[in-house]
């Protein structure tokens, strides 16, 4: 077998390990699942009336849930990033990681396995969030092709934020530290994007930030695909952000993992 197929095989082994971990740490896995659903309920039933009224005619089909559901779906990706960061950080403190480093296995496979596990976990959560949103009255106008494209963009974004989660897990020395770092993707960036209100209603500085950060083009792309709102150049920006964050996350994570040989 070639090195590449060994690397694939080791990553698959590490993925099985990660899936087992998710099942064994059930309370944590479930809370990762429930947080986005609670957020959705909160934004639709508690804040939805006022926020929707403020948005006025821009809300497609009139209901605020149509505006906010795509955003909550992508916030789910952000909380998935936090779960990955915490899981990885806890894992790195275990002796088993030291054992892996003394074995003739593909070095990055420990990380790749967690990223793949995170991708699966997050996508399952997203399907559930979409289901709950539909029950609550989310009415996308997308056909099958647009749905597949939307899920593709979401998966790309999940891949990117999973690698960033791995970086946070490695850089943050403790689970709490890892969680704090991932607040960037969990709260900071979604709240200052087009997730809940339109950027043109924000003060100039914040608006500028909102327009040039990753969540806005990704949310606008998914919103456009699902609801038929204009996408413009958001799709290109979204894919570029995903590719860039994935590459940076992968290289950064690999470098940190190889450097911190003993923790």
């Amino acid at each position: 077998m070639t090195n590449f197929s060994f690397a694939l095989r080791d990553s698959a082994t590490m993925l099985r390990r990660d899936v087992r971990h998710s099942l064994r740490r059930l309370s944590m896995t479930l809370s990762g699942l429930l947080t986005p659903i609670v957020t959705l309920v909160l934004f639709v039933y508690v804040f939805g009336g006022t926020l929707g009224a403020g948005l006025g005619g821009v809300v497609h089909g009139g209901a605020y849930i149509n505006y906010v559901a795509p955003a909550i779906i992508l916030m789910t990706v952000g909380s998935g990033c936090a779960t990955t960061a915490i899981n990885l950080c806890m894992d790195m403190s275990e002796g088993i990681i030291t054992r892996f480093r003394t074995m003739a296995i593909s070095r990055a496979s420990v990380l790749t396995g967690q990223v793949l596990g995170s991708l699966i976990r997050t996508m399952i959560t997203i399907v559930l969030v979409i289901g709950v949103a539909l029950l609550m009255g989310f009415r996308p106008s997308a056909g099958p092709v647009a749905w597949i494209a939307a899920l593709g963009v979401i998966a790309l974004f999940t891949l990117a934020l999973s690698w960033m989660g791995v970086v946070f897990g490695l850089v943050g020395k403790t689970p709490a530290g890892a969680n704090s770092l991932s607040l960037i993707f969990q709260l900071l960036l979604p709240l200052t994007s087009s997730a809940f209100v339109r950027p043109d209603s924000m003060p100039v500085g914040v608006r500028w930030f909102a327009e040039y950060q990753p969540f806005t083009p990704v949310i606008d792309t998914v919103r456009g695909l699902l609801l038929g709102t204009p996408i413009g150049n958001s799709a290109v920006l979204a894919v570029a952000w995903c590719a860039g964050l994935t590459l940076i996350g992968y290289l950064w994570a690999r470098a940190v993992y190889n450097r911190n040989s003993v923790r």
Partner: protein
Amino acid sequence: MMMIETRGLCKSFGDHVVLDGIDLDVAEGTVLALLGPNGAGKTTMVQILSTLIGANGGEARVAGHDLVREPEAVRAAIGVTGQFSAVDNLLTGEENLLLMADLHHLGRSEGRRRAAALLDRFDLVDAGKSMPATYSGGMRRRLDLAMTLVGDPRIIFLDEPTTGLDPRSRHTMWQIIRDLVAGGVTILLTTQYLEEADQLADRVAVLDRGKLVAQGTPDELKRRIPGGHIRLQFADASGLEAAARTLGEVARDDNELTLQIPTDGSVRSIKALLDRLDDQSIDVNEFSVHTPDLDDVFFALTGHPDTQKGNVR
């Protein structure tokens, strides 16, 4: 053939020198015990030889492969069981072994066969279905070593394999190690216990503050250690004073009311000593004979006592 060879191996963390020019040779199928107190550099040595960290100077070859140029080949030949448990706490004992089998790219059926054999060999068949959190210290250590053995390594590093184990588990672990050696495996083990080195090692290297201060077979090493001592404790200061006058140059502790007299441990010398005290009608409260321990080895070889113990000499 030498399975482990180091020449002038050095390691420092910042200004702190941990290893200072280590030369070691371990022949195939033998056990080398690296003996030393906490902080001597034993674990650092294992970390370097198992490719976990790099050295700052010197050279090392493991299984004939250079550590720096061919780390993958080194990793393929070695197994490591560290001082800190290296098991996956979210997997059962059996799943841990199967994980190792997968990572060694054994087939599914071969992996299952080997995991079952190891569980049986290490008396973990029932425990195999439960999580390591429910294990005793000895079981954990056995699972740890079983995981190391899944890949059939030719060289095994054991970093303090019995530290923290009860006597029974310690003896079980010793037997496991002997069986491995009988199977032709080369072992480098670190320990703080002279007895452990004595029981298991073909050669012993004494490490102190990053330097090798002695190397040899356990018997050679013991010959370099002065004999043990007799410890006498007295009921009061006058008894201590009288005994010290009678016996001349001996180590004395006025607070504890004790004297320490060097001895070769023979019955004749002990009887002679007691006779002298008896002649002067000196009452001894407590009498004990101490055989050489790691403390004595250290005192003899390094000129300073083991840092963790007292300095009553």
